[in-house]
Structures are given as C-alpha cells and as structure tokens.
C-alpha cells in the first residue's frame, strides 16, 4: 500500500469530516492502526480543522452559554434522583475530565522534559563553543609565533643576501675544538649580527660575550646565550679588525677573560 497515495486521495479528510460510509470508516481505522504516519497525518488534518474553525469563529449571542449551563442543571436534577444512575452517569464523565487533566499533566511533563533537554543541549553547545574558542586562541598564538619566526627568517635572509654585509668566520682558538660562529658586519652602517654554528653548552651562571678588536683594544659588543637561533643583532661597531667570543659570568665583563676565548676571526 502506497501511504503517500493513500493520503493524497483525501480519504483522511473525508474521514475527519465524517463523510465516509461505515464500511469505509472501518477500512480507514484499520489503516490508522497499521501505519503511524497515517495517524500523524490525520492528527495534523484535525488540528487544521480546529485552527480553521477557531479562525472563522463567530461570537454567539452572549446569553447562549448561560442558557446551556442552566439547561444542564435542569437535566441533572432528575438524573441524580436515584443513586444508581448517578454512579453510572458520573463514572464515564469523570474519565473524560481525567482525560483532559491527564492531557494537561502530560503536556506539562513534556514541556519540562523539553526544557531540561534544551538546557542540556544548550550547555553542551556552550562547552563545545568554549573549547572551539580556546582552540582558536591557541591557533592564533601559534600562527603569530610562526609568523614572527618567518619575519625573522626573512630579515636574516635579507642580511645574508645583502652585499654590504661582510661575513667574518670565527674559528676555534684552542686546538682540538671545533667551535665556530660568524659575524655579519656592515662596515658602512656599523651594524653587526651574530650567527652560532657550533658553541658548547654553558651553565646557568655563564654567558658568551662578543668582542671586537678596534685599534688593538677589545670593545664589548654584548652578551648572548649558547642556544640563540638565527641571526642575533649585536652592538654596532666601527673599524673592527677582529671579532672574538669569550665565556664570561652572566651579564658579561668589562674586560675579556682571554683564557676563556672560544672562537675568533679576522675581518678579511
């Protein structure tokens, strides 16, 4: 049986408006019992009829309601004369009233369940949202880090590629060591950048210090840690003849500790 075709035949509307023969009615009722989607469609049709009737309502004469209720009182009085009829009459009516009450209780239960359900969903949505926000912040900070690294690399490449910068290689001073570092020095602008290739690890209390030999005297060019990556800008210097790196106490010294010289190189 094609349910869609059955529905579109309009038989459910005819059923709802009491327009079928009793045989046809029984057929529809059998179908309703078998197919929940038919029941749902019928319910929608009935709701539609109700909405249509409410929308096209006409206000009755104002005394009609009172007159109906007073007629019921008249009819009730004789009916209540014998206790037996009273019981028979009341029982089913109560059940309808109970049906109305049960429906409203069911509605309230459904409403509070929905409220609870939506609250739970709302909370989990909020959690998911907070997590997404945190992820987003993390991504943004990682992006910034990467971006900064990239910018630094771009700057470094510019310096390395700039022909005004002269590369001065500093080799190991003590025999047997294979430490190396380089200085990119621009004689015109006096800017100097350090690049570590291989220097030994220092303790917490120690730092490397870069010196330039100018007119035979050592000039401080600043301190640096053993684990610096990329190019590190050092103090500017003019007329440098030699660059050298010594190990000094953290913060650097006024005069180089010559015994602790690690690498040195002459400007070519």
């Amino acid at each position, binding site marked *: 049986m094609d349910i869609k075709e059955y*529905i*579109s*035949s*309009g*038989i*459910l*509307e*005819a059923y*709802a*408006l*009491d*327009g079928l023969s009793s045989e046809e009615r029984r057929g529809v*009722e059998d179908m309703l019992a078998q197919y929940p989607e038919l029941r749902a469609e*019928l*319910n*929608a*049709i*009935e*709701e*539609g*009829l*109700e*909405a*249509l*009737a*409410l*929308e*096209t*309502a*006409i*206000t*009755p*004469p104002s005394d*009609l*309601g009172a*007159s*109906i*209720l007073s*007629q*019921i*009182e008249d*009819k*009730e009085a004789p009916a*209540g004369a014998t206790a037996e009829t009273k019981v028979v009459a*009341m*029982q*089913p*009516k*109560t*059940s*309808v*009233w109970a*049906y*109305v009450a049960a429906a409203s209780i069911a509605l309230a239960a459904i409403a509070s369940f929905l409220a609870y359900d939506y609250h739970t969903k709302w909370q989990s949505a909020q959690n998911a949202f907070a997590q997404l926000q945190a992820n987003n912040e993390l991504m943004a900070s990682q992006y910034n880090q990467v971006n900064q690294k990239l910018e630094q690399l771009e700057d470094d490449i510019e310096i390395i590629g700039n022909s005004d910068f002269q590369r001065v290689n500093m080799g190991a001073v003590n025999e047997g060591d294979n430490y190396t570092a380089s200085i990119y020095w621009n004689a015109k602008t006096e800017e100097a950048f350090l690049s570590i290739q291989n220097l030994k690890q220092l303790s917490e209390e120690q730092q490397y210090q870069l010196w330039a030999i100018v007119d035979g005297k050592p000039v401080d060019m600043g301190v640096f840690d053993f684990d610096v990556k990329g190019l590190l800008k050092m103090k500017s210097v003019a007329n440098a003849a030699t660059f050298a790196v010594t190990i000094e106490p953290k913060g650097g010294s006024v005069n180089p500790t010559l015994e602790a010289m690690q690498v040195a190189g002459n400007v070519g």
Partner: protein
Amino acid sequence: MKGQDKEALAYLYNKYGAALYGVAQRIIKNDDVTSEVIQDVFLKIWNKIPSYDSKKGRLFTWMLNLTRNAAIDKIRSKEIKKSGKTDSVEDNVYTIDQQNSAEMSVDGIGVKELMGDLVEEQRFIVQKIYFEGYTHSEISKECDIPLGTVKSRLRSALSHLRKRVRK
C-alpha cells in the same frame, strides 16, 4: 465531581463555542436557529461525552462533527417542510459569503479572505462540504465530479487553508 464536569463543559464552551457557532451559522444562515442548534449540540456533548473515543480522533473533531451533523439535519428538515425540495447546489454556490459577510468580518480573518487564494475548484468544494455541509457523494452526483476527485480536491484545499491559518 458534578461541579467539575460542569466546569469542564463551561471550559469547552468558552474555548470552542464561537468556533462551533461559526461552523453551524454558515450552514444554517440564521442566528436564532443556530443558537438553538448550538444549545442542542452542547447538551449532546454533555450526554455523549462518555462515548467519545480519543483513539478515533481529537475531541474537537468529534464536537465539530456533532455540530455539522446537527446543523445539516436542521436545514434539511426545514427545507423539506418549507419547499418540499432541496436547493440544487448550483443555485446558492456563492450566496453564503454575501449573506454572512458582516458576521464573517467580525471574527478572525474572515472566510472570504481565507478562501481568496484557493483555486476555483477547491473553493467550491470547501464551500459546499465544509461550510454548507453537503456530503462528498452529493457533490459528486450533483456536479458530476468523480468521488475521488471531490476527496482529493478537498484535501488540497484543506491543507492549503491549514497552512494559511497557522501563519
């Protein structure tokens, strides 16, 4: 208990009285007779509500059909007494809206407005079956439209109205 039941009926009247009055009025087209019928209908509801079976449909549908059947019975018996013949369907197709246009504009959005954007064939079927209480087979015979077509037209018209009413 009895008080509560009466309260339930008063509740039903307050909620649905005007809707059912509108339904009956459009079939009967006379306020005094409609009041009489609605009074009978609510007494029937009061007496028959134990036999109402919620499995067979909504309470309103049950009341709607009680009202429609009572209203139709009323005009049939009156018409037969008066003229000895039923009006042919064609004669009063669109007279109802004109007669009732005053009342209709009072409550709700009005039948005319609701029906306005139905196609001609659908409007006719709704008018005859829903608002005037003709049966499906009467329409089919009188207007020479296959019964299946009457049903499917009523369906498409009602589902259209359903959408409009819910807006």
